[in-house]
């Protein structure tokens, strides 16, 4: 009877295969508007596969992806972007032969109406304005990550998927990038991120889920769990942890 708020992103029972390998088994999650939801887990747990499936790069054998209640499971990645799902992929994947500005422009060509444009990205990352005509290969890792985020932001997504933001970046740069999250949420975006650095994820997220070998081992608000419980879920230790 209670009229629950409809989640922005509702993933139900995803099972994904890479050839013979079962990468995800029956993974579900609900992300409400204005929330930061973090997926944690070790290497190979299926976190990136989950984000790539939500973005449309993999087709699930079972399960559905709903965006604002609309089933987008059969849409191609390019149609999902227009529907409102943008992925900042692992390894950043900028276009190396394009300049910083051209990377952002290409990100804006299929954008939804919304507050983000190149000007706002330049305001967010002050250094970028002076370097619009540089190739992205000349940028540092943190700067490249910023361009990758900017390229996704200018599409004005409803849901921003961030894959391994901290990979290969100095801790101080990682803190700066996570410091941006409130501004994104303030602009009405919802964030689903994947992170190997558990302490970072626990600080940033309002909900977390832990994957182990493609299955959910833990799900809830970060303050519901002790570090030991999270550790057990992360490494798949057989102890059930302290009784809750």
């Amino acid at each position: 009877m209670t009229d629950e708020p409809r989640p922005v992103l509702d993933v139900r029972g995803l099972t994904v295969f890479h050839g013979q390998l079962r990468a995800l088994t029956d993974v579900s999650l609900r992300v409400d508007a204005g929330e930061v939801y973090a997926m944690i887990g070790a290497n190979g747990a299926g976190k990136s596969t989950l984000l790539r499936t939500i973005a449309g790069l993999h087709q699930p054998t079972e399960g559905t992806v709903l965006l604002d209640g609309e089933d987008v499971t059969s849409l191609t990645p390019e149609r999902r972007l227009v529907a409102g799902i943008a992925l900042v992929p692992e390894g950043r994947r900028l276009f190396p032969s394009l300049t910083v500005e051209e990377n952002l422009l290409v990100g804006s060509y299929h954008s939804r109406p919304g507050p983000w444009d190149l000007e706002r990205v330049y305001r967010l990352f002050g250094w970028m304005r002076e370097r619009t005509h540089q190739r992205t290969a000349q940028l540092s890792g943190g700067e490249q990550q910023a361009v990758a985020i900017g390229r996704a932001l200018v599409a004005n997504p409803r849901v921003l998927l961030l894959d391994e933001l901290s990979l290969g970046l100095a801790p101080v740069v990682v803190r700066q990038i996570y410091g941006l999250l409130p501004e994104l949420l303030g602009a009405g975006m919802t964030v689903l991120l994947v992170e190997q650095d558990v302490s970072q994820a626990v600080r940033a997220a309002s909900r977390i889920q832990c994957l182990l070998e493609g299955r959910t081992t833990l799900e809830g608000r970060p303050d519901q769990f002790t570090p030991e419980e999270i550790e057990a879920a992360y490494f798949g230790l057989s102890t059930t942890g302290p009784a809750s």
Partner: protein
Amino acid sequence: MSWINAIVQGILVGGLFALFACGLSLLFGTMKVINLAHGDLAVVAAFLAVELAPVFHIPIIWSFLFVLPLFLVLGYVGQRTLIQASLDRGPLTTLLVTFGVAIVIENLLLQAFSADSHSLDIGSLGTASIHITDQIQVAYLSIFIFVLAVVVLLGLQYFLSRTRTGHMIRAVADDPEAARLVGIDYRHIFGIAASIAFATVALAGLAFGTYSSFNPTSGASRLLFAFEAVVIGGLGSLWGTLLGGIILGVAQAIGAHIDPSLQVLAGNAVFLVVLAVRPEGITGRRVEA
């Protein structure tokens, strides 16, 4: 002085080679397809001009007005059907398919037009020339084709660097999957790139037809020269392609000046030297391991 004349003629022919090469380069650059039917498509364009200009009652020089749009459409449709289907099956398949298409085209042309040579007769423009010295005479047609090549390359350069579609073509060429993530339908972009490549090869075919005679099997040598121009100049650089075309043209002209039978051989020799000494081409950057 006759040497200078040979070099001048070689430079001008280089424009024609570059015109042939830029479509090949564009297709390879965006979708990693080596189109072995490239030269034969050019010959098809020339035959279409020969056959259809009388039907439409227009002078041959205006035949690009229908050949060009036809090839624009043919490029898009051909990519979205045949080329994309073979791309989905792996890089080797595209080689086999375009090789097959080349053979089919040659045989259809032989069937339809016999092995006789044809040429595109554009009247007095085809023979008029500027008299610079007693030994250096430059045909208007050669200058016109060279200028056409430079204009096409400039146009491509502008298109790729300044327009929305150009940015998307470069993005897709860099990383098709990342391009999908920013909302680009890469198949459609491949189609547009193929469409442009086909249009340039049609222009090259028409220019070739006005410049020399052609027959249904002329395509293979055109393909070879286009390849050589691309490799000498350096893959992925439009101006490198022009430079490669000019070097090939000059080499052929000098070879021919020594002995007419050396023309093609001299070009091939320069090509092989570049391949051995500087495999990334004159303007190409060495690929870091």
